[in-house]
């Protein structure tokens, strides 16, 4: 890609204001979650192959790498969900004057708190194996 075209591409997606960042976040997390959903259904489908096949698959996913991915999934879900609530409020006409605060304080701020509340226990129990 030529330098000019590359610069135009960056300029296109460079977020100007937090509203555009929120849009980008929703899009990226949405795509990741859709991908996860499709893979997840395929994994759950292992149930139809009987207990041995399923439990083997579950053992595979007990590896710490997958636990870390699970924590990342939690973060992705929380971000998408809270920003989604923000978008729904805006669509109902609520919070137009505060759409920035809704993003930084509600979606990101409260989101980070909920994330830590969930992620830290999972991390301690499954990755660092605290308490086992």
């Amino acid at each position, binding site marked *: 890609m030529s330098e000019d075209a590359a610069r135009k591409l960056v300029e296109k997606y460079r977020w100007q204001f937090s509203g555009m960042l929120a849009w980008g976040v929703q899009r990226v997390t949405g795509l990741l979650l*859709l991908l996860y959903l*499709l893979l997840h*259904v395929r994994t*759950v*489908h292992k*149930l139809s192959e009987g207990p041995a096949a*399923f*439990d083997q698959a579950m053992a595979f996913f007990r590896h710490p790498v997958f636990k870390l991915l699970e924590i990342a999934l939690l973060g992705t879900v929380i971000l998408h969900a809270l920003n989604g609530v923000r978008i729904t409020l805006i669509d109902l006409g609520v919070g137009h004057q505060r759409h920035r605060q809704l993003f930084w304080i509600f979606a990101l701020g409260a989101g980070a708190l909920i994330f830590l509340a969930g992620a830290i226990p999972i991390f301690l129990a499954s990755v660092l194996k605290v308490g086992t």
Partner: protein
Amino acid sequence: MTWPVVEWYLQRITGALLVILLAAHFWVEHFMSEPLRRGELTYEVIRERIANPYWQAIDIAFLLVALYHGLSGLRNILLDYGRLGRRGARAATAALALVGMVWAYWGVEAFRNLR
């Protein structure tokens, strides 16, 4: 009433439903009983739950809502790029609907031996 406004409202309604259903799903799979809290998510544990037709129905409904929300979201992304044209948009919608139906089938079929 035309389709675009219905899709717009549905995306928000399914989104709100998913917030609840996902939280519930997380609780059901990881906190509902002692073995689950220990991380023992096994075939047996799941079979016991899915034997109850109400749980099966909830799980399948949850899957359909999630598939709709995700695939409809992807459709929006494709439309946003404005490079599809009218025929391309119809083809993309059909492709996404096909993906949805295939995955819905796999989701339902996953429970076939548990019943």
